[in-house]
């Protein structure tokens, strides 16, 4: 118990802060912060597996998050029959063409030795393949995008419950990571960082501009929910009774019947949105706990020790007969898959998919700040980093406003400096993140909860 004292203390402080937000601001805000903290925690766990366990630097988190979101759309949206009949055949045919192209390239790679001729053959296959695919898919894409463009204009999905997308998102992200890993893992650390960052930008560009698949920047709204809808809840008897029971003493103070009824209504409306958020929290918490157990088990297993050995001294591990390339690829895929789950969870919670909102600042660099601040290599640290940084990211604006008011207290309200500063309060969050990251890296380079190696 004593050993874990700092972990318990750090988490208690974190929960205390969220509860304080609940008391002073509102429980709605507190819960939405908590939910996003949980999602961030899943993302940081994914990044932590790659960086903390294996020392692989992956700046492509944004791309995997977006793929997870794409999975949520493809799984949960109902199929658009018209679009399928208009262009489905062309799309499927181009898909077969792409698969055929890949198989052909693989065949050439296996069959012939490395030579100039082989490179030319592969280049010819790829270029002619791309031209052929464009030729086949273009009419299909145009037809699909013309089907009721204001509402659909895309193929839709499978119409399954959105929860399945969490797994499919992991598969998507893992698949992409497999391809990237095959291509880029041999690169040196900083090249790998740049390459993954750029590849994730390519992924976003595709998701943004292939309207037939994702509706692009027109966004997909109104996704299915795993939780009940507020409007439905407000009319269910058991829920109204529940709210009444919870606020019994408060309601009893009101004598007038109609006044009591309106107060109850107000409480039910508030309660319904809190209840929905609690449902999400429950679901997310289950995911976080399952992942935490799995990652902890992995960390202290022989496999985890091997990963640390590879991280700390690649050559030695290689000499001991460990297949470094294979293990790197494996952990790259695993970590990315976890990020993919988080991406699907995020879209599930928001109920909408907005490809335009995926920006590297928010989805790549912020996650890295979380991992570094929390403590790389330590799962509890990574989760704490996710919580603390997200909390600060949201609460930075109120804190910044408070600080501005404090420092400019001597100035009049109409003073241009004060007005300017108050207008730029939203950007204080960048400042806080940056300074926080720099301070942690300087004075506590292993993070708030550093990695500790226990021999069990």
């Amino acid at each position, binding site marked *: 118990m004593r050993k874990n004292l700092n972990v318990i203390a750090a988490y208690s402080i974190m929960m205390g802060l969220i509860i304080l937000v609940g008391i002073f601001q509102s429980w709605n805000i507190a819960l939405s912060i908590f939910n996003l903290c949980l999602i961030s925690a899943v993302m940081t766990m994914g990044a932590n597996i790659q960086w903390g366990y294996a020392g692989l630097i992956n700046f492509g988190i944004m791309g995997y998050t977006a793929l997870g979101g794409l999975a949520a759309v493809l799984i949960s949206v109902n199929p658009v029959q018209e679009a399928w009949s208009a262009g489905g055949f062309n799309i499927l045919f181009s898909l077969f063409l792409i698969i055929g192209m890949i198989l052909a390239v693989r065949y050439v790679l296996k069959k012939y030795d490395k030579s100039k001729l082989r490179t030319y053959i592969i280049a010819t296959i790829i270029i002619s393949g791309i031209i052929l695919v464009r030729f086949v898919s273009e009419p299909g894409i145009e037809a699909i995008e013309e089907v009721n463009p204001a509402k659909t204009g895309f193929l839709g999905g499978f119409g399954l419950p959105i929860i399945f997308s969490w797994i499919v998102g992991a598969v998507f992200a893992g698949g992409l990571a497999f391809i990237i890993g095959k291509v880029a893992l041999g690169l040196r*650390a900083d090249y790998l960082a740049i390459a993954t960052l*750029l590849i994730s930008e390519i992924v976003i560009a595709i998701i943004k501009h292939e309207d037939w698949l994702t509706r692009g920047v027109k966004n997909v709204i109104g996704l299915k929910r795993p939780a009940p809808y507020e409007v439905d809840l407000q009319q269910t008897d058991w829920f109204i009774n529940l709210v009444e029971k919870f606020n019994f003493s408060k309601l009893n103070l009101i004598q007038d019947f109609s006044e009591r009824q309106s107060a109850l209504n107000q409480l039910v409306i508030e309660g319904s949105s809190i209840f929905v958020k609690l449902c999400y929290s429950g679901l997310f918490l289950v995911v976080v706990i399952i992942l935490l157990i799995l990652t902890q088990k992995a960390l202290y297993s022989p496999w985890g020790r091997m990963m640390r050995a590879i991280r700390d001294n690649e050559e030695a591990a290689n000499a001991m007969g460990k297949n470094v390339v294979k293990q790197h690829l494996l952990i790259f895929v695993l970590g990315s898959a976890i990020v993919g789950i988080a991406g699907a969870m995020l879209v599930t919670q928001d109920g909408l998919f907005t490809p335009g909102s995926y920006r590297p*600042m928010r989805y790549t660099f912020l996650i890295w700040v979380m991992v570094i601040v929390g403590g790389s290599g330590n799962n509890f640290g990574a989760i704490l980093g996710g919580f603390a940084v997200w909390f600060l990211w949201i609460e930075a604006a109120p804190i910044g406003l408070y600080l501005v008011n404090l420092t400019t207290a001597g100035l009049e309200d109409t003073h241009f400096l004060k007005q300017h500063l108050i207008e730029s309060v939203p950007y204080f969050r960048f*400042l806080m993140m*940056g300074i926080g990251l720099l301070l942690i890296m300087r004075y506590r380079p292993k993070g708030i909860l550093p990695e500790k190696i226990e021999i069990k």
Partner: protein
Amino acid sequence: MDFINAIILLLNYIFIPALTYGSQLALGAIFVTLIYGILRFANFATGDMMSFGTMAAILFTWYFQSLGVSLGVLPTALIAIPFAIIFMIFYMLLIDKFVFKYYRNQKSPPVQLAMVSIGVMFVTQAVVRIIIGPSDRRFFDGEKFIIKAGEFKEITGLNEGLAIKSTQILTILVTLILVTTLFWFLNKTKTGKSMKAYSDNEDLALLSGIDPKKIVMITWIIAGILATIGGTLYGLDKSFKPFTYFNNMLPIFAAAIVGGIGNPFGAFLGGYVIAFSEILLTYAYKKFFMYVLPESMEPDGLVQLLSTDYKFAVSFSILVIVLLYRPSGIFKGKVL
């Protein structure tokens, strides 16, 4: 006649814009490459440092405009640039002293320095947005065009117009002068040579009596000049928006790596490689073929290889291909 029209068309829509954009990228890429070669880390704050320099230039421009100083046909920003550079160098040396110096002395691995540069990126971004705000700003004044499309048509009697913006010529000229001076400095002067030696082999350079503090300081000074001028030229040509500058970091990185990171000349050419391939691959050639081919063979579609949405994706794909087949870049990197 049709043939000349076709050439003018390409000049107007591909060659001149690509040359301008390439020059802007080239300056940024040399900045990245210098930092990588001498300070030995990938600087993720590149875009934001450029936006910081541009912000300083804009503030000085506004100041001069309020004083009524102007250069007539040339943009006022040109007078502001030297002051902005001094401001920028001061900021960079400050950051180096409080942030990077510690890790350099600790001999931290490059990855850690890259992480630290992400912290700097956050801080710089915040400072820029707090001081000047996130909105789009144009600070160009003076004569906008050297030749307008209409005038060109009148003079030559061609169907196609050629419009040359003064900022385009300005960008290309300034880049050429700056880069020539820089290469002269690196190759001919004693300080430049010692920088090359330091980048090549740090220990050997120290043994031969090169002062690392001086090298680092000069690197930051050159970097400050490049970042400010590159950023300001981009801002004059297009417009200043902090978010765009952050995004520009990506093609700049691509240019630096394609040219061989650590190799300034490679970075210079890499900028143009990226710019030309972006524009060549996303331009719709329909009109060009209409001029060149006989009427019976005119194409139906736009004859566009990729839609313009994939402009960025093009440069990144080139980068990935280069990384796969020639990780040291087209022009052997890591020798300054």
